[in-house]
């Protein structure tokens, strides 16, 4: 019996996962195809870009600065052993653009904005605001989900760019101002070693995909919440956990595709 129960449970879990993916897909589809009303949609989008993007800037800038400085400090000690401290610039910049920028930004965004999104939508659901929109003949997917989704998708790449920029400045601060690498060679080697297509475009692709995934998970968790305080706290936690895991797993996949050959 034990084995049969286990198999039953496995099957049920699998079905739940597939059904959940289906519902998440339907939610996103409903939100995206309902976007064409720009006159009403644009103010909502701008408001959400402010809430999700601008409000996340502090944590992104501060984290970027420190990560850039730490990278430079660690890099400097290793590179100094080999006498190639001039490569510090490209080392910091490439680490940030290719991996740390998109990944850390997405993780921070999941913690800062994703959890807030889930809690907000969950609260709107449990206080019947979503139901009341429906009863007013307004589609909550269009009114609530769509602007938040697009705001997340647009904000994350912008935040990632900001993160990388500040990180490089942090690296400059440590490498040039503190450790005394020549400023001219820091910038010129950095510039010549970054490729537009290979590094910058890939960074943007990664961060856009992370933006989609994190925002999608956050919105879905909020939308499907069990409408009580316990449900909301659980949903918020699972947003952060699932979004973080999804970002890390996807990052490996994307890195393998982009840089694997």
């Amino acid at each position, binding site marked *: 019996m034990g084995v049969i129960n286990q198999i039953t449970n496995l099957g049920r879990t699998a079905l739940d996962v597939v059904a959940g993916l289906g519902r998440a897909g339907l939610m996103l589809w409903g939100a995206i195809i309902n976007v064409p009303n720009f006159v*009403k949609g644009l103010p909502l989008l701008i408001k959400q870009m402010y809430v999700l993007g601008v409000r996340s800037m502090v944590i992104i800038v501060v984290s970027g600065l420190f990560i850039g400085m730490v990278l430079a400090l660690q890099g400097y000690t290793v590179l100094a052993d080999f006498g190639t401290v001039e490569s510090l610039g490209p080392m910091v910049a490439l680490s940030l653009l290719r991996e740390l920028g998109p990944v850390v930004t997405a993780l921070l965004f999941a913690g800062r904005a994703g959890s807030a999104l889930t809690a907000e939508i969950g*609260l*709107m659901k449990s*206080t*019947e*605001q979503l*139901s*009341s929109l*429906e*009863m*007013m*003949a*307004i*589609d909550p997917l269009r009114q609530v989900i769509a602007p938040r989704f697009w705001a997340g998708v647009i904000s994350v790449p912008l935040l990632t760019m900001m993160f990388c920029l500040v990180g490089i400045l942090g690296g400059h601060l440590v490498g040039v101002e503190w450790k005394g690498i020549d400023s001219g060679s820091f910038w010129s080697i950095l510039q010549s070693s970054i490729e537009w297509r290979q590094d910058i475009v890939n960074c943007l692709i990664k961060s856009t995909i992370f933006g989609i995934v994190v925002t999608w998970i956050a919105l879905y968790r909020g939308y499907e919440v069990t409408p009580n305080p316990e449900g909301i706290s659980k949903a918020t936690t699972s947003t952060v956990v699932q979004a973080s895991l999804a970002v890390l797993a996807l990052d490996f996949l994307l890195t393998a595709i982009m840089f694997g050959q």
Partner: protein
Amino acid sequence: MSDSSLVNITPALVEIRHMKFSRGSRVIFDDICLNIPKGKVTAIMGPSGIGKTTLLKLIGGQLTPDSGEVLFSGQNVHQLKRQQLFELRKRMSMLFQSGALFTDMNVFDNVAFALREHSGLPESIIRKVVMMKLQAVGLRGAALMNPNELSGGMQRRAALARAIALEPEMILYDEPFAGQDPISMGMLVKLIGELSSTLNLTSVVVSHDVDAVLSIADYVYVIAEKKVIASGTPDELQASKNPQIEQFINGRPDGPVPFHFPAEDYQQEMLSGRN
């Protein structure tokens, strides 16, 4: 008993026919039939947890019954296409138990919301309409306050102003009196009564507050154990000899609905010596 003149004379705005509804394996409604007469206040009473709110969501088309039908002025709510359902919902409105005011806007914008979405009126006229609705519920002075600055009763009234903004034919009230102090309860009773008589609104009030409901309802349905167990005018119900109705109306702690949740014998439990 004449069961009852009123429902038979007045044309029904909403007809529920042999509706069944269950959540998972739990049956909520089993073969419910009821009529909601046009322009009257119909109350739906019953103990908590028997799905009175669910009934309102079924009428509003937010939930779909397993079988049977719900007709709103002749149209089957659950066979409409999404667009038609949305058109239908512009003719009804719902006052949620929590008020469900949008927390990111002030009272004025809450009331104006549906007007801005659906009416296509210029802002100057919307402003006048909103102020009229707020005046009707006595909250014109609170137009610029945020929902979380209002007391529970004021929130409920603001939500009522929002519910009548588009001048619907029918309002569904979900537990309008729950958790209200006597003063705001009195205000809500007065408002619901006035609105339905002056605007000729059809009102459906779901509640278990017997006194308040009996004072405003024209017709009452009592739901228990998945069925309509009684219906009639308030006077008829008060005169009822049915022990279930009597218990409910008079609020007796024990009766057909037992005080004790089913359990094994008390004496045995005490003597069994289990830890």
